[in-house]
Every structure is written in C-alpha cells, then in structure tokens.
C-alpha cells in the first residue's frame, strides 16, 4: 500500500492499514486496539509518513507490521531506547512505542522509567494482558500473586508491579488507562496522548483469549463494569456505579468509597484534577484496585514538563548562538600548534 503517497482529504482508518495480514489469535484484544489506533490517526489526519511505531517483542509488539506508517519491530524490551534515538534526531515525527507487560515492565522496565523521567515527547502504549503471550503463557510482572501459569504451577510468588504507581513515581507528565474493548474511551485516550507534549503513558487492559482469558471480565462485563471502573473526568467529582450513586472521598490521607445519600454528598468527594502540579491525587488513583475500589480509567495526569528532545535541541541552538556554528578548521587549530616548513 505504501505506493499511493497522498493521503485523502478525509483519511479513513483503512488508509493506515499495511498490506500485511494480521496474525493475532482470533478474539485477541490487540485487534480492538489496532482498530482504534487507525481510527485515531485518521480522525487526526496525521500524515502516515510522519508516524513511526517502535515496538519490542511480544504478541503486542507485532503491531507496527499492521500499520501503513514507518515502524520498527525491534528487540525485547528496548523500544523506548530505540525511540529515544529516533525522536531526539527527528523531533518533528510522531513516535509511538508499543509494548507489553513483559516487554515493557520485565526486561524493559529500566528503559521505560528512564524515558518517562526524561519526558521525551513520545507515546508509550502498554498492552497489559497480565501474561507472556508470545512465549505461551508464563506469568508477567502484572500477573496477580498466586496466579497459576506454565512457569508458576503452584501460583506466582512475585508481587505484581503497579505500573501506574511507578510511572507517577517517575513524575510521568501524562498517564492514562483504558480498556481494549471500550473503543470510544480508548480512542479518546489515544487522541489525548497523541496531542500531549512529553511522554504519554497509556496502560491498556487487553484480553489474551488463549493464555489469560477473562482477566478483565470485571472491567468489560456489562453487568459489573460500571461498579468496577471509575471513569475519570477532569474537574468532576469521583463518582461511579451503575446508578452513579457511589463516590470516592478522602478519609485522613487515604481514599474511601462512600455511597451518595447516606451521610455523603457529591461535595464531599474528591474532585479529579488531571493538571495538578503535584501528582498526589494521581498517585492515589493508581492505588485503587478492584474489588476494594473501582479502578479508575481515563486520564490520571496531564501536565506540562520540559521535554528531553526539546531541551537537547535547544542546547544545540543556544550553543550555535553563543559560539557561532562550529568551524572544524578553527577547532583543529585551537590550542597550541606549530608549523613545519
């Protein structure tokens, strides 16, 4: 497809589809995320040639092959580092990192946190299926304790990483969470992430039908999801529940669930502020887990912080301003020299 160079006026999702046949298991949550990504880019009409998808290794990491953009299916865990080299040299490109819970949090955890703390202007989308899919079902850093898998027949003893808490701990400037099948919400998150300047980090709950099917039933099942999830809205109180009759209030310094009406009114509830300078609230929200709490989805945090790529390139321009464009002949002759006739 990479032949027709021009993008139509109103691009369609299909304009962003590569000619490669998609090879995930039927029913895999990755399909929904792929579909949303194409829709989002189309709706934002971003020229295909200015988009680059960098991934590591894993089922999720096959993503770039299916996009008619530039892309690299790199090696396990290193996508954020690959993206760093690309972005600092080509700041005008929109660079996406596609990773999984194993790729991004196990082998790639260090690159992830360093990319986030540097606030490089890239979008990192972590497909969290709480399992190693491509290697056929070992537990991952997000698998719950006691999870029985091929490599933990008596149950996992690794306390899972709460990735959003870690991201907030690294002062991430944009943190969001969404669910593979919640297409509208996911689309919104992808669009916001793409617009954000700085590292945008999105955790997407993704169902692995083969090795961890149903891990997110609570978040997708019509019957319970409205009690199990809390949709964050900037400036709105933290209300949730089928009948929007429950909310989150601060008790001491910890959040608690209250039912509106009996003794608690909306005015008592915490109000979401994605732009708060201090990430305290965002941190709280990452600590809320079903069933004790509803799990927040949406934009946890979105603030402006200096971006690594921008600062690096600014130093270049400043240096040129101050010292003038470097002349190698001058440099070579700087310091002590002597001439032999």
């Amino acid at each position, binding site marked *: 497809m990479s032949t027709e160079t021009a993008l139509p006026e109103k691009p369609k999702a299909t304009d962003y589809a590569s000619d490669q046949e998609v090879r995930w298991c039927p029913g895999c949550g990755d399909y929904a995320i792929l579909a949303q990504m194409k829709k989002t880019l189309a709706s934002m009409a971003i020229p295909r040639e200015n988009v680059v998808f960098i991934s590591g290794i894993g089922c999720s990491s096959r993503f770039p*092959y299916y996009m008619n953009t530039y892309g690299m299916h790199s090696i396990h865990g290193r996508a954020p580092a*690959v993206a760093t*080299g690309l972005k600092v040299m080509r700041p005008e490109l929109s660079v996406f990192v596609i990773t999984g819970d194993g790729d991004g949090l196990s082998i790639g955890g260090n690159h992830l946190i360093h990319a986030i703390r540097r606030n490089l202007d890239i979008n990192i989308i972590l497909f969290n299926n709480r399992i190693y899919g491509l290697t056929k079902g070992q537990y991952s850093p997000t698998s719950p304790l006691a999870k029985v898998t091929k490599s933990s027949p008596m149950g996992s003893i690794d306390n899972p990483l709460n990735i959003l808490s870690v991201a907030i701990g690294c002062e991430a400037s944009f943190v969001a969470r969404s669910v593979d099948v919640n297409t509208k919400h996911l689309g919104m998150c992808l669009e916001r992430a793409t617009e954000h300047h700085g590292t945008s980090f999105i955790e997407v709950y993704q169902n692995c039908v083969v090795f961890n099917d149903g891990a997110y039933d609570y978040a997708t099942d019509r019957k319970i999801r409205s009690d199990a999830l809390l949709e964050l809205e900037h400036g709105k109180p933290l209300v949730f529940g089928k009948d929007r009759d429950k909310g989150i209030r601060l008790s001491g310094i910890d959040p608690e669930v209250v039912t509106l009406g009996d003794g608690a009114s909306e005015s008592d509830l915490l109000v979401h502020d994605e732009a708060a300078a201090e990430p305290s609230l965002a941190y709280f929200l990452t600590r809320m887990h079903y069933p004790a709490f509803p799990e927040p989805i949406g934009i946890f945090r979105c603030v402006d912080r200096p971006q690594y790529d921008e600062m690096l390139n600014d130093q270049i321009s400043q240096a*040129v301003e101050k010292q003038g464009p470097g002349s190698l*002949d001058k440099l070579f002759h700087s310091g002590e020299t002597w001439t*032999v006739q």
Partner: protein
Amino acid sequence: MAPAEQRKPVVDLDAATVRFCGDSGDGMQLAGTQLTNTSALAGNDVATFPDYPAEIRAPRGTKAGVSGFQIRFAADKIFTPGDQVNALVTMNAAALATNLQDLEPHGILIVNEDGFGKRDLELAGYEHSPLEDGSLDSYQLYRVDMTKMTRAAVKELGLSTKEADRCRNFFAMGLVFWLYDRSLDPTERFIIEKFGRRPAIAEANQKALRAGYNFGITTEAIVRRFAVRPAELPPGTYRNITGNMALAWGLIAAAKTSDCHLFYGTYPITPASDILHELSRRKNFDVRTFQAEDEIAAMASVVGAAFGGAMAVTGTSGPGVSLKSEAMGLAVMTELPMLVINVQRAGPSTGLPTKTEQADLLQALYGRHGECPLPILAARSPADCFEVAMEAWRIATRYMTPVMILSDAYVANGSEPWRIPEMGDLPRIPVNHPGPPTDGEPFLPYARDEHLSRPWALPGTPGLMHRLGGLEGQKQTGAVSYDPANHEYMIRLRARKVAGIANDIPLQELEGPESGSVVVLSWGGTYGAVATAVRQLWEDGASVAHAHLRYLSPLPANLEQILQRFDRVVVAELNAGQLRGVLRKEFLVDAVGLNKITGRPFTVAELVEAIQQELDKKS
C-alpha cells in the same frame, strides 16, 4: 624564556625519554602534558604514555595511588614513548618503588626528598630509605627538596601551605625544562589561560616553574644538560592530540563531509568516556550526545537514530560491547549504517579497567548469536583515530551496515603530533536518501544496489513507509518471511555484502622487503612498537617485513599473497593469539604468536628479541 647565560655544557641527543611519577594528587599528568606540548612546539616528534591507577585517589603515598606520565621527544620520527626512561622524576617513595625498574642503567633520577618521610617509606614497603642505603648508587641521583623550595618561592603570595604544595609539580617541570633546554613560554601561557581567574595561584605556579628552572642553573649537583634537535616532519601545521580526541574530531568531520547530523549515544566507561566528554562540548558543531541509562539503551538509541537518518555512533569498552551484542544483531538485520567504537581495556570481566589490551577482536568478529557479520577497523595510533573514524563512516554508509572501530586504552590516552588537515581537502562521504516514489511502483526497502546495500529511506518521506525488524525479512520487500530458502539467501547475502568490502579498501601495505624470511603482522595500538622494532632489526640487515592491519573484517584482498611470500609469519598482539587464530583459519598459515597480556604495551626491546629468535630459527 631561557636565561641569557648558560654556564653548563649542553649535550646533543637524538631523543630523550622522561617520566614524571608521583601521587595521583601531585599533578603528574599535567607535568607530562606540558613537557609534551613544549617539545612538540620545539619541533620534536613526541609520543606519550600516561598511566594512572583505577582508584580516583588512592590514599596519599600508597603504591596504588601512583600516577605516571612518560614522554619521549626526538629529532627523528618516533612511534613509541620508549621502553626505558633516561630521566625519572619521582615525587615520593611509592613512586620510586613502582617506577625505578624502568629507569635505564646510570639514568638520571630526580627525587623529591620530602616524599621519603617515615610514613612514605612504610607505604612504599621500604625497610630503610633507598636514598640512604646506597641502593641507588648506580644512578645519577639528584635529591631535591622540592617542597621547601616551592614554599619559599611562593612565600610572599600568602597561600596556604596546602595551596603552596600544589605548585610542586611546576617546580619539577621547571627543573626538567632546564635539564632538556626547553622553553618555559608555552607553560607560562598555559598557566595564564588555566589559572587566569585566580591570579595568586597563577603567579605561584609561575614562580614555582621558574624556581625549578633556576635551581637547575644554580645547583652544583647537576653538571650537564641536554638538547634534542627538531625532527624532520613533513611540512604542515601540527598539534598534539590524544586518540580519544582524534576519534571525536574524526566523527565530527565525517558528519560534516557526509552532511549528516551526528548522534552519539553512550554510557560512560573507562577508557572511552573522554569521547563523550569531548563531543558533549561540541554542541555548536551540531553534535547531539545522549548519556543513556546503560549500554543496551545506548546501542538501541543508535539504531533508532540511524533509522531517522543520523550519523549514529556509540562508544564503549569491552563490558559495554558484551551488553550491546544483542542490539548489534538488530543493527545487522536492519542494515542501517552506524558505528560502534570499542576502546579496549584489559579483561575479562572488569579485569584491569585502566590498562590496555587487544583481547576483544574475536568478540568483535563473533560475539553475537547467529551468523551476524560486520566490518571491523582498528586504529594504529592516536592521530590515526581521526582517519579511521572517517573511513569507518564511509564504509557504513556505502554498505548500509554497522561498523566496529577498535581502539584501546594505549591509543586513546596516548598522544602524538597530528598534521592538521584542511577540511576542504577531506574527501566527501556521499549519502543518499530516496525521495517519494514517482513511478507508483511499491517501495522495496531491501532492494540492492551494486554494493548489495539497500536504500536508506527516512521516516517523513511520503510513500516510502516501511517496517524494519529483527525477524528474518523477505529479500527485496523485507516483509517477515519464514521461507527456508529466503533465510539462507539472506544469511549469505549479508555475508557477501560485508565480504565485498574487500574490493573497496586499499590493498595491504608492507613495510620492508616484498618477501623474505619473516613478516610480522600487527593491528591496532601495537603499530608503533612493532614498526620501531622492525626498523631496529633492519639496521642489522635482518630480512623482516611488517604488515600492519587497519581492516580486520574483511581482510585486505592481497593479504594471503603477502603471507605466502615469507618463510615465517609472526603475529604480535596484546592478547592470547586472536588475530593469529583468524589468519590460521582464513589462510591455513602456521603463524607464530608473539603475545603479551599484562595490561601494558609491548616494549621495543622485547619485540626485537622475540622477532630475532624467529629470524634465527630460520637460518
């Protein structure tokens, strides 16, 4: 300035070798550098060997804390800093204990008396003072109380004694400058540049320098001084340069001559860090440096930068290369141009991190899983690093491949005069990026040109969207392919592409007879020692030639013929026989190994002796 009246006789020399040694805190590296520059400015050829401990600052007075700087300056072309020292300056007992063995018989030995106190002697492991027990009688021993005289010299400036004592190295310099009839001007200029902001310190150093010089004039003890005529170097403007500096500048020059933006992604490691330090200071040269979280990230960032069209370079030492190996495999598969610099140090593992060695050649060749070939070049000397950097980038871009550059601690930290090129005279390095397709034909990211290299299509180019990756790709399209035949085809193709470079590099040069009994092969930083040794053997009319390899993969096309023209092939290297093994494998030649793995460079003497033995076997 050199004082008007010269009471003492001056002996002319062809060359002199001087070593300053003392505590890490004594400023010996600075003293050495000053003598180097001064001698270079005086027109001598120079070669240096700084040698410092792994500890930042081991406790004062300990052997572990001894830091040394050796310099040889000569009236002819020289290739090494010399084996034996003519004049040894030692600031304390530990320095004497660890350096005396390198002083020539009856050599000049200048000691700072006050560095031989009780505690100093203990730390140096001396029962009683070598200055007293006659053990130094065979040398020209000059005992100088540098501390006292330095303090006296700077007295009226009202510095603390600590500050005053910091000027001692300038006193030592002054004395040596007098001894070898060197001008004080360059050092005085340096003092003003460096300490201008602290006038008291500047003046103190200057006073100490002159005090040392004048001590030479006035002391009764030292009766002669020496002079070394300017050398006959090819005409041109020269500067003194270290290997890491030359490498950094070579990278910037390569970026300029190829119209690329330079990206240097790295993680600090001795002895490669100075490349980062130098490049990070050159932002106005459009140089972007990225200090990554580790070497893997550094290598990966370089792959990303190369994808984006940058001149992407990473530099490290052995441990870092080990970590980069997986990502280097990705670099080979994506067939993007980039440079990987290994400033070798003594291994394995952490080994002797500040010492030199050449034991990473086989890793450069085979240190990645799967069939994963890439070109390898090695620099022979500090100044040579400049050319090697440019040549490596020429190959990387023409053949769309990562290229490995091997340097080593000896080359990286050592220095020599460098004939400064005119940027205008440097060859351009042509780099092309395909534009948007005009023919409506699908873009083939793995199509091949006459060099078997693929197009370097950049993100941002309409119509050339494509995906790269570490999975095997279909020839031409690059799409993931499990086709068995295609896999073998691609493996062979990547190998053929690298092998083909042999037709695009100079034929191997040979110094000495076209044929004869022994040819000595060397590579990397051992050039100077081997070249000097071979020249000495020529003087006795020995039938020995020298082939020094810059290209280690692929090997020059004519190398096999050269080897066949000699009765014996000797391979000199600072490892257990790595190049030797490669030659045996490639050419089935029963090469003899001349190896040293002590973390130190070859001495000319040991090479001469070993090569002579081979020559004798013959006759």
